């Protein structure tokens, strides 16, 4: 693991009392390996290592009394800045908060819609939740969300046809006569490279003033995570990322990659299959699993 590798390199540095460029190169190599192993995107790793190297070769480490400690601090500080600022969750101070979920096939959107509804119901004491079934493609997608809505005590809205945009617009019109605190729009899974399907969510976003647009992303995504996040962000303007299946053992480097490249904050994480397996995102756990 990086911590062990980093530790042994750091110890060498401490041992001699002096730190050389060669020591630093060795440590950077270990960091690079660990991050690539953790599925951090190639270019993001390159940027990260360059940032650490620049600081490490500066006065602070080379002339430090304890260069090993100084180096470790630089690595952790840099990772913290890549992973982003304090998590502000969702602003639910309005009368009704509209949240749209988008993402690749199978990432966990439908399940997350129910989780989000339950979370806001319990955490923010907002009793009136509406889940909108706007996945008009996947067999039994509407049934799936309908069942989940029943399980968390939320209302469910859909229509029996294939026009997702129309369903969303009509759900939005419903708000003129029926009061809801939270409305979550579940959409069909789609590839970031499927222009027609990307167009569909662009149209929905243009037609309805969403307060939040979350990319629901599998925490196990590989190198393509950056392309996925960038494309969805450019299409609909993401306000947050939800990482799912954190209860697995993937190192989660995709999360760092997506956040770093788009600047979109990671808001929540799914930690299991049940509706209550949902938490506010914590960067420190991700940082230690990426550094190994």
């Amino acid at each position, binding site marked *: 693991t990086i911590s062990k590798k980093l530790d042994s390199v750091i110890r060498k540095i401490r041992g001699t009392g002096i730190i050389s460029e060669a020591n630093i190169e060795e440590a950077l190599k270990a960091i690079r390996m660990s991050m690539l192993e953790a599925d951090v995107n190639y270019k993001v790793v390159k940027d990260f290592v360059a940032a650490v190297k620049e600081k490490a070769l500066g006065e602070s480490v080379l002339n430090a009394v304890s260069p090993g400690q100084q180096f470790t601090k630089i690595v952790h500080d840099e990772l913290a800045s890549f992973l982003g600022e304090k998590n502000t969750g969702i602003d639910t101070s309005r009368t009704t908060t509209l949240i749209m979920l988008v993402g690749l096939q*199978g990432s966990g959107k439908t399940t997350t819609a129910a989780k989000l509804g339950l979370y806001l119901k319990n955490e923010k004491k907002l009793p009136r939740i509406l889940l909108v079934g706007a996945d008009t493609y996947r067999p*039994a997608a509407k049934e*799936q969300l309908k069942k989940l809505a029943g399980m968390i005590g939320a209302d469910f809205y859909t229509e029996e046809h294939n026009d997702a945009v129309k369903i969303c617009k009509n759900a939005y019109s419903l708000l003129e006569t029926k009061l809801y605190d939270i409305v979550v729009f579940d959409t069909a899974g789609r590839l970031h490279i499927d222009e027609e399907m990307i167009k569909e969510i662009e149209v929905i976003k243009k037609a309805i003033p969403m307060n939040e647009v979350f990319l629901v992303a599998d925490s196990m995504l590989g190198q393509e995570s950056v392309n996925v996040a960038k494309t969805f962000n450019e299409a609909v303007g993401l306000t947050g990322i939800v990482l799912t299946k954190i209860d697995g053992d993937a190192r989660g480097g995709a999360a760092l990659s997506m956040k770093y490249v788009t600047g979109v904050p990671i808001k929540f994480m799914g930690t299991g299959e049940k509706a209550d397996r949902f938490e506010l995102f914590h960067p420190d756990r991700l940082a230690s699993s990426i550094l190994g």
Partner: protein
Amino acid sequence: DLFTGKDAAACIEDIEQSLIEADIDLAIVDETVELIKKNRIKSYEEARVFLKKVFAEKLSDSSVKREIKGLYIIVLVGINGAGKTTAASKLASYYLGRNKKVMMAAADTFRAAATEQLETWGNRLGVAVIKGQENGDPAAVVYDAVAQAKKSQTDVLIVDTAGRLHTKSNLMQEIVKIKKVILKEVEEESVDTFIIIDANIGKNGYVQAKEFNEAMNLTGVILTKFDSSAKGGSIIHIKSDLGLPVKFITFGESTGDIEEFSAQHFVDEMFD
């Protein structure tokens, strides 16, 4: 376009980057880069031809296709959302196209509307779907399905199971039990156990294959979502380290978006 002198290092780094970006295991990337250097590859075009050859060899499945007499059972396992239920329907369509009598078992008794999802496919294809009680024992559904399949002279029974993470030992025990139930009713040679791996996933794809294999002896991999921009490079590590070949590849959400895996076709896609 030629790797000349001082440019050679930059070109090698370029190639290394594209291999890493294809989600290929890092040790395999290193050994491949060493091979490129050792073979004195002089251009990107030469490298592409060489890489295709190297990886096609790594991926080709030399195992003999066995002749199945009587009922053939395919069990689909894998993590949540990988594409198992959809793959079940595609395999059903694939075997219908080969004039086989097909049946499906909806052994995901846990997830909301999982049975309805498979039943919709069954209705569309005209394939019987055996189901059980919601939250019932999936092994019981499988037992029923095998009995029904035998009774109705079914050629191929496809068992769809619930998604599960390999980190959950109780869920892994569940599929071990399902396999035991099946092996009480048919010969081991009549069963294939495929893990469904999503091409968008990174290094964890190999971990999944390793863990599922240790739990229940897999016989192959189905790589899904190859229509994405991801290259699915984890299948190389899965084949070279675990000996598990990819049997099918899916590249879309329609019933016809499935093909028997071809190593040559795959590397052509990967390096073009």
